[in-house]
Protein backbone atom coordinates (compact mmCIF):
# COMPACT_ATOMS: atom_id res chain seq x y z
CA UNK A 1 0.00 0.00 0.00
CA UNK A 2 1.52 3.22 -1.13
CA UNK A 3 0.73 6.66 0.21
CA UNK A 4 1.44 8.41 -3.07
CA UNK A 5 -0.55 7.88 -6.27
CA UNK A 6 0.42 4.73 -8.12
CA UNK A 7 -1.49 2.29 -10.37
CA UNK A 8 -1.04 -0.50 -7.83
CA UNK A 9 -3.38 1.41 -5.51
CA UNK A 10 -6.27 0.52 -7.84
CA UNK A 11 -7.81 -1.92 -5.38
CA UNK A 12 -8.47 0.98 -3.04
CA UNK A 13 -10.99 2.33 -5.54
CA UNK A 14 -13.20 -0.38 -4.13
CA UNK A 15 -12.49 0.33 -0.45
CA UNK A 16 -15.56 2.09 0.95
CA UNK A 17 -14.26 2.51 4.51
CA UNK A 18 -14.78 6.03 5.89
CA UNK A 19 -16.31 7.19 2.63
CA UNK A 20 -19.74 8.60 1.97
CA UNK A 21 -22.70 7.97 -0.33
CA UNK A 22 -21.17 9.51 -3.45
CA UNK A 23 -18.24 7.13 -3.10
CA UNK A 24 -20.55 4.13 -2.78
CA UNK A 25 -22.14 5.25 -6.03
CA UNK A 26 -18.71 5.43 -7.64
CA UNK A 27 -17.79 1.92 -6.45
CA UNK A 28 -21.10 0.45 -7.63
CA UNK A 29 -20.74 2.19 -10.96
CA UNK A 30 -17.24 0.88 -11.51
CA UNK A 31 -18.02 -2.70 -10.42
CA UNK A 32 -21.15 -2.87 -12.54
CA UNK A 33 -19.26 -1.34 -15.49
CA UNK A 34 -16.63 -4.06 -15.34
CA UNK A 35 -19.28 -6.75 -14.77
CA UNK A 36 -21.39 -5.61 -17.70
CA UNK A 37 -18.37 -5.45 -20.00
CA UNK A 38 -17.54 -9.02 -19.11
CA UNK A 39 -21.17 -9.99 -19.70
CA UNK A 40 -21.17 -8.24 -23.07
CA UNK A 41 -18.22 -10.36 -24.11
CA UNK A 42 -19.86 -13.60 -22.94
CA UNK A 43 -23.15 -12.59 -24.50
CA UNK A 44 -21.59 -12.01 -27.90
CA UNK A 45 -19.85 -15.38 -27.72
CA UNK A 46 -23.05 -17.11 -26.61
CA UNK A 47 -25.05 -15.61 -29.45
CA UNK A 48 -22.74 -17.31 -31.94
CA UNK A 49 -24.92 -20.36 -31.14
CA UNK A 50 -27.60 -18.66 -33.23
CA UNK A 51 -25.50 -18.88 -36.35
CA UNK A 52 -25.12 -22.63 -35.85
CA UNK A 53 -28.83 -23.31 -36.28
CA UNK A 54 -31.89 -24.22 -34.26
CA UNK A 55 -30.56 -27.26 -32.43
CA UNK A 56 -27.47 -25.56 -31.00
CA UNK A 57 -29.35 -22.46 -29.87
CA UNK A 58 -32.27 -24.31 -28.32
CA UNK A 59 -30.04 -26.61 -26.34
CA UNK A 60 -28.12 -23.57 -25.09
CA UNK A 61 -31.42 -21.95 -24.01
CA UNK A 62 -32.41 -25.14 -22.24
CA UNK A 63 -29.18 -25.07 -20.29
CA UNK A 64 -29.74 -21.39 -19.49
CA UNK A 65 -33.00 -22.25 -17.78
CA UNK A 66 -31.36 -23.84 -14.78
CA UNK A 67 -31.46 -21.77 -11.56
CA UNK A 68 -27.73 -21.04 -11.47
CA UNK A 69 -27.99 -19.33 -14.81
CA UNK A 70 -31.10 -17.51 -13.69
CA UNK A 71 -29.31 -16.08 -10.68
CA UNK A 72 -26.51 -15.00 -12.99
CA UNK A 73 -29.04 -13.42 -15.28
CA UNK A 74 -30.62 -11.55 -12.39
CA UNK A 75 -27.17 -10.29 -11.39
CA UNK A 76 -26.69 -8.96 -14.92
CA UNK A 77 -30.07 -7.26 -14.79
CA UNK A 78 -29.19 -5.78 -11.40
CA UNK A 79 -25.89 -4.48 -12.75
CA UNK A 80 -27.63 -3.05 -15.79
CA UNK A 81 -30.35 -1.35 -13.80
CA UNK A 82 -27.93 0.10 -11.22
CA UNK A 83 -25.41 1.23 -13.83
CA UNK A 84 -28.15 2.65 -16.01
CA UNK A 85 -30.01 4.57 -13.33
CA UNK A 86 -26.82 5.81 -11.74
CA UNK A 87 -25.60 6.66 -15.23
CA UNK A 88 -28.58 8.97 -15.69
CA UNK A 89 -27.62 10.67 -12.43
CA UNK A 90 -23.98 11.04 -13.45
CA UNK A 91 -24.94 12.38 -16.88
CA UNK A 92 -27.26 14.98 -15.37
CA UNK A 93 -24.89 16.07 -12.61
CA UNK A 94 -22.08 16.27 -15.16
CA UNK A 95 -24.02 18.99 -16.89
CA UNK A 96 -24.61 20.72 -13.59
CA UNK A 97 -28.16 19.43 -13.16
CA UNK A 98 -28.95 18.40 -9.60
CA UNK A 99 -25.29 18.32 -8.63
CA UNK A 100 -26.10 19.49 -5.14
CA UNK A 101 -28.63 16.73 -4.69
CA UNK A 102 -26.38 13.89 -5.77
CA UNK A 103 -26.83 12.03 -2.48
CA UNK A 104 -30.60 12.20 -2.48
CA UNK A 105 -30.84 11.35 -6.16
CA UNK A 106 -28.57 8.33 -5.69
CA UNK A 107 -30.67 6.99 -2.83
CA UNK A 108 -33.91 7.59 -4.74
CA UNK A 109 -32.59 5.91 -7.89
CA UNK A 110 -31.32 2.93 -5.93
CA UNK A 111 -34.75 2.56 -4.35
CA UNK A 112 -36.19 2.51 -7.86
CA UNK A 113 -33.54 -0.05 -8.87
CA UNK A 114 -34.61 -2.30 -5.98
CA UNK A 115 -38.25 -2.12 -7.04
CA UNK A 116 -37.35 -2.99 -10.62
CA UNK A 117 -35.25 -5.91 -9.43
CA UNK A 118 -38.08 -7.26 -7.28
CA UNK A 119 -40.31 -7.08 -10.30
CA UNK A 120 -37.80 -8.95 -12.47
CA UNK A 121 -37.14 -11.51 -9.76
CA UNK A 122 -40.85 -12.08 -9.38
CA UNK A 123 -41.27 -12.72 -13.12
CA UNK A 124 -38.13 -14.81 -13.50
CA UNK A 125 -38.54 -17.10 -10.51
CA UNK A 126 -42.26 -17.17 -9.88
CA UNK A 127 -43.74 -15.83 -13.09
CA UNK A 128 -44.44 -19.01 -15.01
Amino acid at each position, binding site marked *: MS*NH*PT*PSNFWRWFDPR*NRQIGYW*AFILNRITALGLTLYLLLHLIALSQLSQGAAAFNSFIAMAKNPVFKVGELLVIAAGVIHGLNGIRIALT*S*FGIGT*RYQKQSFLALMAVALLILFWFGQIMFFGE
Partner: protein
Amino acid sequence: MNVEKWKVTFVVSRQKNQEPRLYQSFQLEIDPDEYVLDGVERIWAFHDRSLTYRHACHHSTCGACGMLVNGVEKLTCITSIRSVTHNGGTLKVEPLRNFAVVSDLVVDMSNFYTHLEAAQFGQVASLAQAALPHDADTRSVTDGEFERLVDCIECGLCVSACPSALTSETYYGPAVLAAAQQAFNQSKNSALIHFADQHDGAWGCHSAYECSAVCPSNVDPAWRIMDLRKKTLAYRIKQLFRK
Protein backbone atom coordinates in the same frame (compact mmCIF):
# COMPACT_ATOMS: atom_id res chain seq x y z
CA MET B 1 -12.32 26.71 37.02
CA ASN B 2 -12.94 23.00 36.47
CA VAL B 3 -11.72 21.76 33.12
CA GLU B 4 -12.98 18.43 31.86
CA LYS B 5 -10.16 15.98 31.10
CA TRP B 6 -10.27 12.93 28.87
CA LYS B 7 -7.79 10.09 28.64
CA VAL B 8 -7.17 9.61 24.93
CA THR B 9 -4.69 7.33 23.17
CA PHE B 10 -3.23 9.03 20.13
CA VAL B 11 -2.03 6.45 17.61
CA VAL B 12 0.35 8.35 15.37
CA SER B 13 1.81 7.27 12.05
CA ARG B 14 5.61 7.46 12.18
CA GLN B 15 7.78 7.25 9.12
CA LYS B 16 11.33 8.45 8.55
CA ASN B 17 13.73 8.09 5.62
CA GLN B 18 11.17 6.29 3.43
CA GLU B 19 11.16 3.34 5.83
CA PRO B 20 7.90 1.40 6.36
CA ARG B 21 5.26 3.11 8.43
CA LEU B 22 4.98 2.35 12.15
CA TYR B 23 2.26 3.35 14.56
CA GLN B 24 3.24 4.79 17.91
CA SER B 25 0.81 5.28 20.79
CA PHE B 26 0.81 8.21 23.18
CA GLN B 27 -1.48 8.47 26.22
CA LEU B 28 -2.72 12.02 26.65
CA GLU B 29 -4.82 13.57 29.34
CA ILE B 30 -6.51 16.31 27.49
CA ASP B 31 -9.42 18.72 27.49
CA PRO B 32 -11.81 17.30 24.85
CA ASP B 33 -12.51 20.81 23.59
CA GLU B 34 -8.91 21.08 22.46
CA TYR B 35 -8.34 20.26 18.82
CA VAL B 36 -6.64 17.24 17.30
CA LEU B 37 -3.77 19.47 16.21
CA ASP B 38 -3.33 20.59 19.83
CA GLY B 39 -2.99 16.92 20.79
CA VAL B 40 -0.34 16.39 18.11
CA GLU B 41 1.47 19.52 19.25
CA ARG B 42 1.37 18.29 22.86
CA ILE B 43 2.97 15.03 21.75
CA TRP B 44 5.76 17.02 20.10
CA ALA B 45 6.16 19.38 23.08
CA PHE B 46 6.00 16.89 25.95
CA HIS B 47 6.65 13.39 24.56
CA ASP B 48 8.68 13.24 21.38
CA ARG B 49 10.52 16.12 19.73
CA SER B 50 11.22 14.09 16.61
CA LEU B 51 7.56 14.12 15.56
CA THR B 52 7.07 16.21 12.43
CA TYR B 53 3.77 17.68 11.24
CA ARG B 54 2.65 20.69 9.21
CA HIS B 55 0.75 23.54 10.80
CA ALA B 56 0.68 27.31 10.88
CA CYS B 57 -2.46 29.33 11.52
CA HIS B 58 -4.46 27.06 13.88
CA HIS B 59 -7.75 28.58 12.70
CA SER B 60 -8.45 27.12 9.25
CA THR B 61 -7.11 29.88 7.04
CA CYS B 62 -3.76 28.40 5.98
CA GLY B 63 -4.59 24.78 5.18
CA ALA B 64 -1.32 23.32 6.45
CA CYS B 65 -2.63 20.86 9.04
CA GLY B 66 -4.68 18.42 6.96
CA MET B 67 -4.36 14.83 8.23
CA LEU B 68 -6.33 11.61 8.34
CA VAL B 69 -8.11 11.38 11.68
CA ASN B 70 -9.52 7.91 12.26
CA GLY B 71 -9.29 7.38 8.52
CA VAL B 72 -11.12 10.54 7.51
CA GLU B 73 -9.56 13.69 6.08
CA LYS B 74 -9.74 16.50 8.62
CA LEU B 75 -8.36 19.96 9.08
CA THR B 76 -6.97 19.10 12.51
CA CYS B 77 -6.87 22.68 13.84
CA ILE B 78 -10.67 22.91 13.87
CA THR B 79 -11.50 19.27 14.61
CA SER B 80 -12.23 19.05 18.31
CA ILE B 81 -11.12 15.89 20.09
CA ARG B 82 -14.67 15.55 21.39
CA SER B 83 -15.98 15.21 17.84
CA VAL B 84 -13.78 12.26 16.87
CA THR B 85 -13.33 10.09 19.96
CA HIS B 86 -14.60 9.52 23.48
CA ASN B 87 -13.15 9.47 26.97
CA GLY B 88 -10.84 6.44 27.12
CA GLY B 89 -10.94 6.12 23.34
CA THR B 90 -8.26 6.15 20.68
CA LEU B 91 -7.56 8.63 17.95
CA LYS B 92 -5.56 7.57 14.91
CA VAL B 93 -3.60 10.28 13.12
CA GLU B 94 -2.06 9.60 9.71
CA PRO B 95 -0.70 11.71 6.86
CA LEU B 96 -2.98 12.62 3.96
CA ARG B 97 -3.26 9.99 1.26
CA ASN B 98 -2.25 10.46 -2.36
CA PHE B 99 0.83 12.50 -1.45
CA ALA B 100 4.32 11.12 -0.83
CA VAL B 101 5.25 11.11 2.86
CA VAL B 102 8.25 13.28 3.72
CA SER B 103 8.40 12.44 7.42
CA ASP B 104 5.76 11.25 9.90
CA LEU B 105 2.67 13.36 9.21
CA VAL B 106 4.32 15.67 6.67
CA VAL B 107 3.51 15.07 3.02
CA ASP B 108 5.08 16.52 -0.11
CA MET B 109 2.58 18.87 -1.73
CA SER B 110 4.89 20.49 -4.29
CA ASN B 111 3.16 18.81 -7.24
CA PHE B 112 -0.21 20.03 -5.94
CA TYR B 113 1.04 23.61 -5.64
CA THR B 114 2.59 23.49 -9.10
CA HIS B 115 -0.78 22.52 -10.53
CA LEU B 116 -2.59 25.24 -8.55
CA GLU B 117 -0.18 27.79 -9.93
CA ALA B 118 -0.73 26.46 -13.45
CA ALA B 119 -4.47 26.94 -12.93
CA GLN B 120 -3.76 30.68 -12.53
CA PHE B 121 -5.67 30.69 -9.29
CA GLY B 122 -5.42 33.88 -7.20
CA GLN B 123 -6.00 33.82 -3.44
CA VAL B 124 -7.77 37.18 -3.39
CA ALA B 125 -11.00 37.86 -5.29
CA SER B 126 -14.01 40.14 -5.19
CA LEU B 127 -16.70 39.07 -2.71
CA ALA B 128 -19.01 37.90 -5.49
CA GLN B 129 -16.30 35.86 -7.18
CA ALA B 130 -15.06 34.35 -3.93
CA ALA B 131 -18.49 32.95 -3.08
CA LEU B 132 -20.30 29.93 -4.47
CA PRO B 133 -23.42 30.92 -6.43
CA HIS B 134 -25.54 28.69 -4.20
CA ASP B 135 -24.05 30.09 -1.02
CA ALA B 136 -24.31 33.84 -0.58
CA ASP B 137 -22.80 33.70 2.88
CA THR B 138 -20.24 36.48 2.70
CA ARG B 139 -21.85 38.77 0.16
CA SER B 140 -24.31 41.61 0.69
CA VAL B 141 -23.21 42.31 4.25
CA THR B 142 -22.43 45.84 3.16
CA ASP B 143 -22.59 47.86 -0.01
CA GLY B 144 -19.58 48.59 -2.12
CA GLU B 145 -16.66 46.85 -3.70
CA PHE B 146 -14.73 44.52 -1.45
CA GLU B 147 -12.25 41.75 -1.87
CA ARG B 148 -11.45 38.78 0.26
CA LEU B 149 -9.30 35.72 0.47
CA VAL B 150 -11.07 32.94 -1.40
CA ASP B 151 -12.49 29.84 0.25
CA CYS B 152 -9.92 27.34 -0.95
CA ILE B 153 -7.12 27.09 1.60
CA GLU B 154 -5.21 24.55 -0.49
CA CYS B 155 -5.13 21.97 2.29
CA GLY B 156 -5.25 18.96 -0.03
CA LEU B 157 -7.99 17.08 1.87
CA CYS B 158 -9.95 16.73 -1.37
CA VAL B 159 -7.00 15.13 -3.14
CA SER B 160 -6.59 12.68 -0.28
CA ALA B 161 -10.23 11.63 -0.55
CA CYS B 162 -10.35 11.43 -4.37
CA PRO B 163 -10.42 7.97 -5.98
CA SER B 164 -8.95 9.25 -9.25
CA ALA B 165 -5.99 10.67 -7.37
CA LEU B 166 -5.28 7.24 -5.85
CA THR B 167 -3.75 5.86 -9.01
CA SER B 168 -2.62 8.82 -11.11
CA GLU B 169 -0.07 11.36 -9.99
CA THR B 170 -0.72 13.50 -13.02
CA TYR B 171 -4.46 13.87 -12.40
CA TYR B 172 -4.97 17.48 -11.34
CA GLY B 173 -7.38 16.63 -8.56
CA PRO B 174 -10.40 18.46 -7.16
CA ALA B 175 -8.77 21.60 -5.70
CA VAL B 176 -6.88 22.38 -8.89
CA LEU B 177 -9.92 21.88 -11.11
CA ALA B 178 -12.02 23.98 -8.75
CA ALA B 179 -9.27 26.59 -8.94
CA ALA B 180 -9.35 26.51 -12.74
CA GLN B 181 -13.12 26.97 -12.64
CA GLN B 182 -12.77 30.05 -10.45
CA ALA B 183 -9.90 31.44 -12.49
CA PHE B 184 -11.94 30.98 -15.67
CA ASN B 185 -14.87 32.82 -14.08
CA GLN B 186 -12.54 35.72 -13.43
CA SER B 187 -10.45 35.89 -16.57
CA LYS B 188 -12.40 33.95 -19.24
CA ASN B 189 -8.97 32.83 -20.37
CA SER B 190 -9.48 30.01 -22.87
CA ALA B 191 -6.12 28.49 -21.91
CA LEU B 192 -7.93 27.27 -18.81
CA ILE B 193 -10.39 25.35 -20.99
CA HIS B 194 -7.48 23.56 -22.64
CA PHE B 195 -6.12 22.92 -19.16
CA ALA B 196 -9.40 21.30 -18.12
CA ASP B 197 -10.18 19.49 -21.35
CA GLN B 198 -8.21 16.28 -20.84
CA HIS B 199 -8.32 13.11 -18.82
CA ASP B 200 -5.91 14.60 -16.27
CA GLY B 201 -8.38 17.46 -16.05
CA ALA B 202 -12.15 17.59 -15.81
CA TRP B 203 -12.77 14.23 -17.53
CA GLY B 204 -10.74 12.25 -15.00
CA CYS B 205 -13.34 12.97 -12.32
CA HIS B 206 -15.64 10.02 -11.61
CA SER B 207 -18.25 11.85 -9.59
CA ALA B 208 -17.58 10.23 -6.21
CA TYR B 209 -18.20 13.60 -4.53
CA GLU B 210 -15.79 12.80 -1.69
CA CYS B 211 -13.91 16.05 -2.31
CA SER B 212 -16.97 18.08 -1.44
CA ALA B 213 -17.73 15.77 1.48
CA VAL B 214 -14.35 16.39 3.15
CA CYS B 215 -13.75 20.03 2.12
CA PRO B 216 -13.46 22.05 5.36
CA SER B 217 -13.90 25.37 3.62
CA ASN B 218 -17.09 25.43 1.53
CA VAL B 219 -15.34 25.19 -1.81
CA ASP B 220 -17.60 22.38 -3.10
CA PRO B 221 -14.96 21.20 -5.61
CA ALA B 222 -17.28 18.59 -7.14
CA TRP B 223 -19.83 21.23 -8.02
CA ARG B 224 -17.08 23.35 -9.51
CA ILE B 225 -15.73 20.47 -11.59
CA MET B 226 -19.21 19.86 -13.01
CA ASP B 227 -19.53 23.56 -13.72
CA LEU B 228 -16.14 23.49 -15.44
CA ARG B 229 -17.40 20.63 -17.64
CA LYS B 230 -20.41 22.67 -18.61
CA LYS B 231 -18.21 25.67 -19.42
CA THR B 232 -15.81 23.53 -21.43
CA LEU B 233 -18.69 22.08 -23.42
CA ALA B 234 -20.20 25.52 -24.06
CA TYR B 235 -16.83 26.85 -25.17
CA ARG B 236 -16.14 23.91 -27.52
CA ILE B 237 -19.58 24.11 -29.10
CA LYS B 238 -19.16 27.83 -29.66
CA GLN B 239 -15.78 27.14 -31.26
CA LEU B 240 -17.42 24.67 -33.66
CA PHE B 241 -19.73 27.33 -35.02
CA ARG B 242 -17.10 30.03 -35.14
CA LYS B 243 -15.01 28.18 -37.71
